């Protein structure tokens, strides 16, 4: 079974802290994605990566950065956490091509106080 693992299920951080959310997949997938999920807004794409060291901005990249130094790991970084970044964060990975689908981690609920 494909496994996508996010480092924390719940996280509480203070305003101004630098926050790292880690995501690891074990199926050698080329693509990895970070989303935030808010009620009424669905899943909004923050960043995605289609290869090691490659990244593309999604629809809401402001206030975030990412790192993909190894194929299996995709990190989301909040440079200076703010209360409006309190949200559910979901990581996903996938292959490219036919019969593709995205596999998701269990989500990290981040609260910034």
């Amino acid at each position, binding site marked *: 079974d494909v496994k996508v693992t996010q480092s924390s299920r719940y996280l509480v951080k203070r305003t101004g802290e630098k926050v790292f959310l880690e995501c690891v997949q074990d199926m050698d997938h080329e693509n990895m994605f970070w989303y935030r999920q808010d009620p009424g807004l*669905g*899943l*909004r794409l923050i960043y995605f990566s289609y290869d090691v060291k490659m990244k593309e901005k999604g629809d809401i990249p402001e206030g975030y950065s990412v790192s993909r130094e190894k194929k299996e790991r995709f990190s989301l970084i909040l440079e200076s956490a703010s209360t409006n970044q309190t949200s559910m964060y*979901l990581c996903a990975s996938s292959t490219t091509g036919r019969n593709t*689908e*995205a596999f998701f981690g*269990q989500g990290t609920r981040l609260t910034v106080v």
Partner: protein
Amino acid sequence: AQTVTQSQPEMSVQEAETVTLSCTYDTSENNYYLFWYKQPPSRQMILVIRQEAYKQQNATENRFSVNFQKAAKSFSLKISDSQLGDTAMYFCAFWSGGATNKLIFGTGTLLAVQP
């Protein structure tokens, strides 16, 4: 840019009945994939069904089927014989698989199956 629209924030259905969730999308591409994902209270996103745009035949997976209308850019999900375990948030998603490689989701429909 691609967009995905789900116009039904919430729906309710009686157990054993049939329900249809709506989804429309906008794209200028010809080859793409469409998905329905389910997110139960456990928060784990689960793929329900997938449709490839070049296939005219509608995808089916047991009690789940889609009505894919490419010209109308419509992709609805039909759940037959609804079960209590179908209670979840359902998300429609679009993926070009091309140069942009973005996987874009709609805002979701919260489905409640009533006993």
